């Protein structure tokens, strides 16, 4: 609307040079407003004009009541050279009178000049938008053609320069001009690529009708140019390909949309609890997709082929099924596609199954590879090796991508989060639609605003040395309690695992018959113990944090997260050491059949126990506690959903699942079921028992932190363990796809050797394999390059941050300049009209 305001020079002149009577200025001003919002409603215009009238009357009154304000104004008008000299009295002036009062003294002419400043007309009128986008498309086109590298620094970082060309356009505001601009825009859009054009169209702040009109014109033009210019078949083909690709893209989008899980449920949670709690469920959904991917990959490449060609049935035949197997994962399940041990070490093929290689076939280890018949065949060990490897690799890429995207969104500028202005404009969560939650949110916002005001008024009091010391002692105490209890728990888990291990082997030595029911149940002791620790210790940590009394809620959250993370990492570290360091190495000596399957079963039990304990926690911690506090304590407060702790539990469960993929390819399936159950249980519990959180929750930052935690300790730890297992632990000799090999890595080498023997022309592959995969030097070099790339990227990011700082400084300077110029303008204006003003104001005063 303001694009056509006041830019016509004669208005400006009239404002500056006809200060004879206030009425004249007013008239021109209200005329201006009328023009400014032609399509606006009539009454509002009048109201606006009235307001402005009043404002001006105030101005007159203010001028009358304290006419000595003028010298202050003059102090401010000192040019920059003198500013330093005049700084002291200027400061004093500003103390005497807050800055925002000065503006009320500004005359309408100044205000008009201000409102026509180019930076303030951005995105207001249709014409301005069109010409702004014309400029952008031109820039984009030029950049695409000449220098595609420097891209983003350009428009977003110069907000005040952006509208300059807009201004020159909007001087003539007739319809013909707008048509011309639109034509230009259409031309530009037409020469952009399809994806760029769509991006531009979507980003335009115009209505759908206007946009689709522009789009129609672009398409028309395209067709005309196609019909005119003798396009040869190549570009015709290209055009068709583009159209086909677009259709495919849209149908893909529709397909993705139909996959949009839990839309209604998520909307309900978001509507009631806002962004914070919603982020937990979104995280759960992300994990579900990760597991779905893993499950699809392992299911398609490992489980399905093996299930179609089952190996020789185990000698003892099928075991009968009792309920306990579901918990322990043994018995009926132990000889199934569920675990590593079931998979065969030969090449499956369509026609006939080869007789399985005899156990302990180290002598003819490559026999199975050699005797594979030509044709449709499926080399199971190789498939196992590459499927797991690729699955981890792709997961890693997706994770890193998610992480970087999330980082880009949330850490643009990380400082200055307790600004009042931001609280006012950015704290309302538009998602929230439930009435009580809305009431709670507005209550929270008013409390926060009051606190901020109190902060502004209160000086930061420095604590005495004694208080500081006291604080420090409390912190140290709390941390030592937490670390101590974590260590104690880790030790306890270690000794428990040790005890179980020894007991099991003792039992195995004494009687070789099948373990009894008690023995089965005792397998659950370790998972139950660990889950119990996971459940109880966070309570202790919370107590410690309560003792510490952190000032800011964010520090409190970070401390809680780091403590919980420490606990979980310690426990998992101890368990991994136990599994990979003891079970794997000593099992051969003790004559255990298949340690991989055993580890797989252990992980299955852990996963299940984690679910059971989460359910119990939800039941007792949330449901019964709510009933208790409502019925017995008669309090209306409900428990608050602890997002951080719950997300960390999800991360813990996911780490278990990743650790177990190698030993139990169906574990992602179990994890999927677990996540689905968790979703519904948590959703029900949250809706039933919890209330909306009172503290503000910085959702985007927290999501970034959680994705980082999922990537860094969780996924990295799991993949290090898996890689270590593949690389340097010898697999058990009587079961699994790698029986008889020294390490799992050997499967790849054997295949390459065989390939070399069969087709000598592929010898280079063998050398490549020998050098690239087997040689650690190459891996070191690759890792080094990777690190260097990361280092350069962080450097670039650091540089950009510096540039951002500079640009912000520049914005501030420009603001200062603008202030200075406005002052100048005002003073010139004042000087010009001061003689007649006196008479007119005296008139109005009489």
């Amino acid at each position, binding site marked *: 609307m303001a694009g056509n305001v006041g830019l016509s020079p004669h208005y400006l002149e009239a404002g500056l040079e006809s200060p004879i009577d206030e009425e004249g200025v007013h008239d021109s001003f209200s005329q201006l407003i009328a023009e400014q919002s032609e399509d*606006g409603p009539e009454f509002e215009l009048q109201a606006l004009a009235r307001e402005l009238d009043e404002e001006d009357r105030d101005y007159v009154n203010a001028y009358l009541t304290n006419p000595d304000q003028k010298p202050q104004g003059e102090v401010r008008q000192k040019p920059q050279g003198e500013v330093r000299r005049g700084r002291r009295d200027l400061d004093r002036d500003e103390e005497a009178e807050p800055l925002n009062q000065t503006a009320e003294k500004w005359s309408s002419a100044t205000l008009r000049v201000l409102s026509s400043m180019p930076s303030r007309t951005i995105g207001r009128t249709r014409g301005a938008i069109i010409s702004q986008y014309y400029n952008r498309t031109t820039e984009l086109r030029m950049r695409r053609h000449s220098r595609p590298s420097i891209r983003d620094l350009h428009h977003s970082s110069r907000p*005040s320069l952006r509208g300059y060309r807009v201004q020159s356009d909007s001087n003539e505001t007739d319809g013909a001009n707008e048509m011309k601009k639109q034509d230009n825009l259409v031309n530009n859009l037409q020469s952009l690529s399809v994806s760029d054009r769509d991006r531009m169209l979507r980003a335009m*702040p115009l209505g*759908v009708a206007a946009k689709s009109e522009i789009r129609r014109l672009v398409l028309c033009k395209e067709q005309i140019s196609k019909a005119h210019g003798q396009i040869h078949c190549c570009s015709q083909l290209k055009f068709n390909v583009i159209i086909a690709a677009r259709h495919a893209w849209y149908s893909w989008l529709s397909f993705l949309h*139909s996959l949009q899980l839990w839309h209604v449920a998520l909307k309900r949670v978001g509507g009631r609890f806002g962004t914070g709690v919603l982020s937990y469920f979104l995280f759960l959904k992300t994990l579900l997709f990760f597991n779905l991917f893993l499950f699809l990959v392992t299911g398609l490449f490992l489980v399905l082929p093996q299930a179609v060609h089952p190996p020789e049935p185990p000698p003892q035949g099928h075991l009968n099924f009792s309920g306990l197997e579901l918990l322990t994962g043994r018995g009926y399940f132990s000889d199934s596609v569920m675990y590593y041990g079931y998979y065969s070490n030969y090449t499956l093929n369509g026609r006939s199954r080869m007789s399985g290689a005899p156990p302990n076939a180290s002598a003819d280890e490559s026999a199975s590879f050699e005797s594979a018949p030509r044709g449709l065949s499926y080399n199971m060990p190789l498939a196992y090796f590459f499927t797991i490897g690729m699955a981890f690799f792709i997961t890693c890429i997706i994770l890193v991508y998610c992480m970087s995207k999330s980082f880009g969104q949330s850490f643009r500028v990380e400082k200055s989060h307790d*600004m009042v202005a931001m609280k006012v*404009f950015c704290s309302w969560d538009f*998602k929230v639609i439930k009435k009580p939650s809305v009431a709670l949110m507005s*209550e929270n916002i008013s409390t926060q605003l009051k606190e901020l005001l109190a902060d502004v008024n209160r000086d930061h009091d420095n604590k005495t040395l004694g208080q500081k010391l006291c604080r420090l002692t409390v912190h140290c105490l709390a941390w030592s309690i937490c670390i101590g209890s974590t260590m104690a728990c880790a030790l306890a888990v270690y000794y428990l695992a040790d005890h179980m291990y020894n007991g099991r082997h003792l039992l195995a030595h004494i009687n070789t018959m099948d373990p009894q029911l008690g023995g089965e149940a005792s397998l659950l002791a370790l998972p139950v113990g660990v889950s119990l620790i996971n459940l109880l210790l966070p309570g202790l940590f919370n107590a410690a944090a309560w003792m510490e009394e952190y000032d800011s809620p964010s520090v409190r959250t970070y401390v809680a997260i780091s403590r919980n993370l420490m606990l979980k990492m310690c426990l998992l570290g101890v368990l991994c050491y136990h599994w990979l360091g003891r079970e794997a190495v000593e099992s051969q000596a003790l004559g255990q059949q298949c340690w991989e399957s055993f580890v797989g079963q252990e992980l299955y039990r852990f996963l299940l126990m984690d679910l059971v304990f989460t359910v119990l926690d939800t039941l007792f911690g949330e449901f019964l506690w709510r009933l208790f506090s409502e019925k017995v304590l008669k309090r209306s407060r409900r428990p608050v959903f602890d997002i951080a702790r719950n997300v960390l539990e999800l991360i813990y469960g996911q780490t278990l699942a990743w650790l177990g993929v190698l030993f139990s390819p169906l574990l992602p399936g179990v994890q999927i079921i677990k996540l689905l159950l968790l979703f519904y249980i948590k959703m029900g519990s949250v809706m039933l028992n919890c209330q909306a959180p009172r503290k503000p929750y910085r959702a*985007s930052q927290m999501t970034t932190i959680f994705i980082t935690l999922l990537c860094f300790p969780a996924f990295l730890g799991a993949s290090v363990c898996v890689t270590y297992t593949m690389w340097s632990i010898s697999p058990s000799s009587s079961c699994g796809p790698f029986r008889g090999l020294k390490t799992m890595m050997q499967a790849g080498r054997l295949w390459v050797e065989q390939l070399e023997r069969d087709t000598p022309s592929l010898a280079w592959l063998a050398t490549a394999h020998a050098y690239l995969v087997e040689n650690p030097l190459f891996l070191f070099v690759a890792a080094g390059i990777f690190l260097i790339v990361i280092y350069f990227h962080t450097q670039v990011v650091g540089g950009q941050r510096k540039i951002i700082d500079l640009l912000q400084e520049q914005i501030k300077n420009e603001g200062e300049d603008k202030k200075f110029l406005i002052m100048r303008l005002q003073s010139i204006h004042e000087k010009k009209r001061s003689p007649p003003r006196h008479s007119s104001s005296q008139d109005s005063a009489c």
Partner: protein
Amino acid sequence: MGNKQTTFRDEQFEAYQDCTFFTRKEILRLHGRYRELAPHLVPLDYTNDPDIKLPLTLLINMPELKENPFRDRIVQTFSEDGQGNLSFNDFVDMFSALCESSSRELKTIYAFKIYDFNRDNFICKEDMEKTINKLTKGELTPEEVTLVCDKAIEEADLDGDSKLSFADFENMISKAPDFLSTFHVRI
């Protein structure tokens, strides 16, 4: 929407998909929601772009907007006539700007328009007072509101005219990473 009757032509769908952040299915769902508001007014068949507008009073009773303190302003901002009468295109515009994949810039522009109560292209003190009163439902005393206004303007105003222009507003929003996720209405 399992019925066979066509609501939109293919070209219309393509235009919507190119100009908004919605897919085909979401457009259909939006149409369903729009029609739900006044089934006797809005036809199922939109192939020839009927000129129908729903008034503000109907729109602000949608569950997504009903409890929102800025519901009137949101609807008015997206209506072509400024009064709050929304055609289906305006309706799509509204949820497209408020949806998850909408860009920061678009959201900033519309947020600015929403907070600009008197439509003078500035967020002045009066606008801000209205915003605060709506946010807090009158929990703060007038003096506190004035204080908050002064403080907020002092922080965000870069050119010293004691009101926020779009540039000021954009600069402030760029420091609030959560704005993108909170200025979002699921439909």
